[in-house]
């Protein structure tokens, strides 16, 4: 019987800028461990990644940029030449073997895509992927190669598929959006904290695509301190309506876990309640509209101890129709508590009263609802006419 696949190997952990950098792939291992110890991840469901070829990377990235990343990994790219490619910066410092490390992650997402499209697996999950800020010719926001964008281009080319990209990272999925901004066969939907203060600044509701791609980019920028109720209302409504409008062949979801209240880089007040619901809503949409074809990646997530392992485990649990509640495996807590600078959570759910009540809650909810209406305006209009 076909089952979901989980793409994992230690090669995917080589994507490491330096000690102390907020982007830390140890979170992928923590997720893997948590699922193993919860008896939710069987050997037979784990597949090895492959490294993306230069030709595959070039589906999105400029050849000159790929060459620059290779040089950066050899230590032969210097100064201004590097900075023009966004390399050697605070966000994306150069590190040995960075081309290979980045290409492994892209290959892992392509591997998940192939398994799903060839019917060898029901769903595919690459927790190491979701590097949605990578641009055609520039590294940005901790991302070197954009595995999500390459995967969309790959799905279009190899399988002639219409792809719906759903991005629930707290940061706008800019790299993916701009890659397909004029393309009516790739639809992007990103819900994120408003860019007024947060990186990258784009993702306004008025960014809807251009020329033939007009109407195929959806953005839901929510206010800082948005909570589960409002976040899920927007996400669920938008997924439902955009899926019925676009009728994709396959859904690729980017599951950044940095919208959580604990995340140190963002200002939202989302909890595990949302991270339980997000993948289940994506799965239901895929089951209903695209024959169950759903590929999921990780993404941002900078509280690697208290948030990411649980949030990303929920994606895998959703794929396997497993609902776990109550205590986390003791074995996992015992193994990792020593290494963690914070107290690890004890349960799958967040305890009630995680944060102080948000005083502006009604205003925030109202503003977010208006944003939702604006974002879906054009597809609601066209639906009325038909």
């Amino acid at each position, binding site marked *: 019987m076909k089952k979901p696949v989980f793409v994992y190997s230690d090669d995917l952990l080589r994507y490491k800028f330096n000690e102390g950098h907020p982007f830390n792939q140890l979170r992928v291992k923590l997720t893997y461990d948590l699922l193993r110890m919860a008896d939710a991840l069987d050997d037979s469901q784990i597949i090895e990644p492959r490294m993306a070829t230069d030709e595959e990377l070039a589906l999105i990235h400029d050849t000159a940029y790929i060459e620059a990343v290779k040089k950066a990994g050899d230590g032969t790219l210097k100064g201004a030449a590097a900075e023009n490619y966004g390399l050697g910066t*605070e*966000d994306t410092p150069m590190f040995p073997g960075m081309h290979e490390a980045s290409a492994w992650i892209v290959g892992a997402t392509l591997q998940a895509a192939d398994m799903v499209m060839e019917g060898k697996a029901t769903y595919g999950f690459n927790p190491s992927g979701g590097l949605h800020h990578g641009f055609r010719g520039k590294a*940005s926001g901790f991302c070197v190669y954009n595995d999500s964008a390459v995967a969309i281009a790959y799905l279009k080319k190899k399988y002639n598929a219409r792809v719906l990209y759903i991005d629930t990272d707290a*940061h706008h999925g800019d790299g993916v959006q701009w890659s397909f901004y004029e393309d009516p066969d790739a639809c992007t939907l990103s819900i994120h904290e408003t860019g007024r203060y947060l990186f990258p*600044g*784009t993702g306004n509701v008025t960014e809807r695509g251009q020329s033939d791609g007009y109407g195929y980019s959806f953005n839901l920028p929510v206010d800082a301190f948005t909570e589960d109720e409002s976040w899920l209302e927007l996400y669920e409504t938008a997924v439902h309506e955009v899926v019925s409008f676009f009728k994709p062949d396959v859904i690729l979801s980017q599951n950044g876990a940095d919208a959580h209240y604990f995340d*140190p880089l963002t200002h939202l007040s989302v909890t595990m309640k949302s991270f339980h619901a997000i993948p289940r809503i994506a799965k239901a949409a895929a089951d209903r509209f695209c024959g169950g074809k759903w590929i999921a990646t990780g993404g941002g997530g900078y509280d690697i101890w208290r948030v990411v392992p649980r949030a990303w485990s929920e994606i895998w649990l959703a794929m396997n129709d497993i609902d776990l509640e109550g205590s986390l495996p003791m074995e996992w807590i015992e193994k990792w508590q020593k290494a963690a600078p914070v107290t690890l959570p004890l349960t799958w759910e967040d305890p009630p009263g995680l944060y102080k009540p948000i005083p502006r809650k009604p205003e925030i909810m109202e503003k977010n609802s208006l944003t939702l209406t604006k974002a879906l305006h054009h597809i609601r209009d066209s639906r009325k006419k038909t």
Partner: protein
Amino acid sequence: MIVQDMMNKKPVTARPETTIMEALLTLKKHRIRHLPVIVDDGTLAGIISDRDLRDASPSIFDAADHADKFERPVSEIMVSDVITAHPLDFAEDLLSIFYEHQIGCIPVLEHEKLVGVITERDMLYTLIQLTGAHQPSSHLEVKVDNIAGQLADVASLIKNFKININSVLVYPSKQDDTQKILVLRIGTMNPYRVASELRQNGYDVIWPQEPEVGQ
């Protein structure tokens, strides 16, 4: 920034004998609101706006009875005392003109010939560029003393992190005229390291706040 870097160099125009109907259709086709009116040698004769044209059009209730009105030339209704700009005028001056005269479009003349137009919308686009939010960046807001060298000091500290600055706005503090607010868009996803370094150097960082629940 100067006008020639912001203006539309290929404006849609009308001629004095263009009819009101033709002018209305031209506005609709190009989704614009103003037409400079020029004569053969490119000299500006006037300007008409969508409102001038509508004022001169018959009411939709009796348009059929007054169809001849649509055939009148625009020269009869155009404004011929036009506020114009020169390609080397400054963006800041244009902003004041738009604001004070409450107009929507300024023709740009060089040797009395029309070389471009600039609209309120072009100005807004320029402001969007100036605030730098179109490039991947985070918002950083710092309160500094209103004395020389503060911006340079803050900037050099950011330089140490190899972070590119995409835009800078400086405005006076509302509460206190011995202070100024610097608003920067900086090319990093993690502005907290810079913010903490600034705080250690005695700056009042308004944004980003320290994370409430850091590790």
